[in-house]
């Protein structure tokens, strides 16, 4: 007799399901605009040259073994990641108020962060997340007892812009000391980021209500091509003297996806507070996975700390950003050439890997079923799936989908 006979089959979130369908699709024109992983102009995954070189260095280094890392991971990676995020000459680092631990990519950082808040936070454990946001944010918060999922308005579908006033209004009405999750740059899924003036307003509300800020930083460098520029919001909050977390991923920015490299940073009011919090976060790590994987961490550390590899990495980041901008241009131009109804300027003005096209669910369904173009039914496309050679097909398919979809 099974103990689990009542367990029913459940589908994975849509993004995986669609990727599976894409893989099985035999249509010659199929296009995958779903998953957020970088693709070259030829539609292939890209292992960054600096990563290949780092791997080569590691493979021939006899002194490297497979011993356990500490619970907080590879220190050289944590230190370099912290300087990357907060800035080389950050006062917060000089004052020893920033701590970091290596995590299982961005998801792992968020999970530890949420668990830590659930167990130790003295404020209100309502976590406000943007509407819309990355689907896994809600799944994670719902999974952890002690924290509550809430939303703040973010995307205005009429203006296709950030509705900062509505966002700030909701945050003002939140309980003092609530938690707010902000996307530092290249918002997923909309691609629309607050302007600097917007950030100033948001920061003011956060200070006023003593909100605990968590920055989700999965796309550092993808918004502008320059990571110092993209980290502006985080550094601004640091300058204001606020306490916050940064959940950082190296998946996209170094192409290390499956090696699961990330970092959780915490900036505390005092050095003592920061280090005590770090000690507790390590204990949380211990009962989930003990210590993080070493291979990806060593690669990332080399790319950040080795002078030549660092320069190369910065070039790679610029190239990935540039390719995505080119993809945006290809699509925008193709949409105009095909006279697709609507204003498509947002394809150019949005940042990062994703674009909220504005297509409706029904239109997306036509795109998938009729044109073999796979995207999320929210209308989110991954720009990495667009190339010079498929932009025309994508644009024409958009047109057909808009014209033929039955509205509900």
């Amino acid at each position, binding site marked *: 007799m099974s103990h*689990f006979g009542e367990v029913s089959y459940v*589908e*994975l979130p849509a993004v995986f399901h669609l990727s599976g369908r894409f893989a099985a699709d035999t249509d010659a024109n199929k296009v995958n605009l779903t998953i957020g*992983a970088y693709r070259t102009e030829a539609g292939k995954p890209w292992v960054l040259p600096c990563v290949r070189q780092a791997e080569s260095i590691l493979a021939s280094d006899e002194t490297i073994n497979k011993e*356990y890392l500490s619970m907080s991971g590879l220190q050289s990676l944590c230190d370099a990641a912290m300087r990357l995020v907060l800035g080389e000459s950050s006062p917060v680092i000089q004052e020893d108020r920033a701590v970091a631990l290596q995590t299982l990519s961005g998801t792992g950082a968020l999970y530890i962060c949420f668990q830590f808040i659930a167990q130790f936070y*003295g404020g209100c454990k309502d976590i406000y997340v943007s509407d819309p946001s990355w689907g896994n944010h809600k799944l994670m918060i719902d999974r952890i007892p002690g924290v509550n999922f809430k939303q703040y308005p973010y995307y205005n579908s009429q203006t296709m812009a950030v509705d900062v006033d509505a966002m700030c209004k909701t945050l003002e009405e939140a309980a003092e000391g609530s938690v707010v999750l902000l996307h530092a740059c290249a918002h997923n899924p909309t691609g629309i980021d607050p302007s600097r003036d917007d950030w100033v307003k948001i920061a003011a509300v956060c200070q006023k209500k003593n909100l605990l800020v968590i920055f989700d930083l999965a796309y550092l460098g993808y918004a502008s091509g320059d990571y110092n520029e993209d980290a502006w919001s985080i550094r601004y909050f640091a300058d204001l003297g606020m306490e916050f977390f940064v959940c950082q991923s190296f998946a996209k920015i170094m192409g290390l996806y499956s090696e699961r490299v990330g970092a959780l940073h915490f900036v505390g009011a005092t050095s003592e507070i920061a280090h005590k919090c770090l000690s507790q976060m390590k204990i949380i790590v211990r*009962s989930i996975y*003990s*210590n993080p*994987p070493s291979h990806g961490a060593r690669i990332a550390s080399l790319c950040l700390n080795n002078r030549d590899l660092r320069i190369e990495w910065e070039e790679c980041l610029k190239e990935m950003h540039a390719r995505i901008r080119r993809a945006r241009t290809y699509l925008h131009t193709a949409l105009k050439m095909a006279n697709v109804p609507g204003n498509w300027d947002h394809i150019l003005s949005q940042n990062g890997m994703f674009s909220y096209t504005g297509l409706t669910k029904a239109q997306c369904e036509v795109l998938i079923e009729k044109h073999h173009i796979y995207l999320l039914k929210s209308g989110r496309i991954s720009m990495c799936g667009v190339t010079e050679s498929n932009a025309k097909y994508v644009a024409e398919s958009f047109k057909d989908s808009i014209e033929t979809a039955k509205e509900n």
Partner: protein
Amino acid sequence: MLLRALKTTSALASRSFWSHVPMGPPDPIIGVTEAFNRDTNPNKMNVGVGAYRDDSGKPYVLPCVRSAEELLVSQNLNHEYLPTHGCPNLRQAAKVLAFGADSVAVTENLVASTQTISGTGALRIGGEFIKKFHSSKAIYLPTPSWGNHTPIFRDSGLEVKSYTYYKKDTKGLDFEGMLSDISQIEEGATILLHACAHNPTGVDPTPEQWNEISQVVKSRNLLVFIDMAYQGFASGDLEKDAYAVRKFTEDGHRILLAQSFAKNMGVYGERCGAFSIVGESESESEAAALESQIKIVVRPMYSSPALQAARLVSTVLNDPALYSQWLVDVKGMADRIISMRTALKSGLEKEGSVHNWDHLVNQIGMFCFTGMSPDQVARLTGEFSVYLTKDGRISVAGVSSRNVDYLAHAMHTVTK
């Protein structure tokens, strides 16, 4: 600028919602290594953490793993995301290794599994799964058990309880006590068993004892969760070490299994393991349902597991030449440990110890419950810079032909 920063800082500190957070206690096992690292005594020994050392006291990368690495580098593979439940080649190879290629569980695809962040990750996923889907939230651990078991299962939301296991007087198994306790566990609760090379005691049931344990467990309709972190490490024989896993599965227990490749493949920090559940026979669909639900447990925690470890391990397991090499490498490690056990015992006898040290060679695997008291342990560390955990557990893997006599002398000094 600095003054402004200080003013802001102290103002902020008073508004901080974190000022009440206490400094966390150091992890007992990892803390031992950290203390060892700080010690400047040239004779220092680390017999705390369970990581294998060669006879020079150095970390050991298995030859089969080195070969696998070279193979991988030449293939110029990418780092694209794995599916949530990890590398298919690894998952399949892990099942075959644990259950046996000819087992019904494998041949009829009854096993739901996921690649995990080593053994800890597998245990935590199992704990979360039990909390989510199983009617009973109680899990019974042997006394003693690995120190991290309790936090893992407690943080999964389970109620951690215990059953008798180790007998202090004999430094062996308290078999009667164990059976007696198990027969009183409430129906449907989970029982955690160590497949082999029990951590921390090194005391394992014999096959005959496993047969009896299986029957008693069955009579209580308990959910069986087996932790197998040392397959191959105990006796040097992979099949022998998996006896409990295979017997229980044959007996019809729908076991949960946590596997680690940290020690037997020496991939420690790369983090490679697997979590499996044996589904109902005649029902391939139960395995599919279970696997889909396992993925839902995994995704919020870290989305998908690490690739490098999976590639290394599955390359070794799936390549006949590398697999043969691995058998040799694992036996080599197990044999060296067995020889150190023998050397330590005879070292103590040579020192003139009057105590019975038979348990050093009767116990099996990486760890040994010496029977020393916390005070004696403290003296070992303080006077001889020998680092071990308070419970008197030593990792025999940290003993070599160069330091075994030093250890024997130290142990004799504190116990005579």
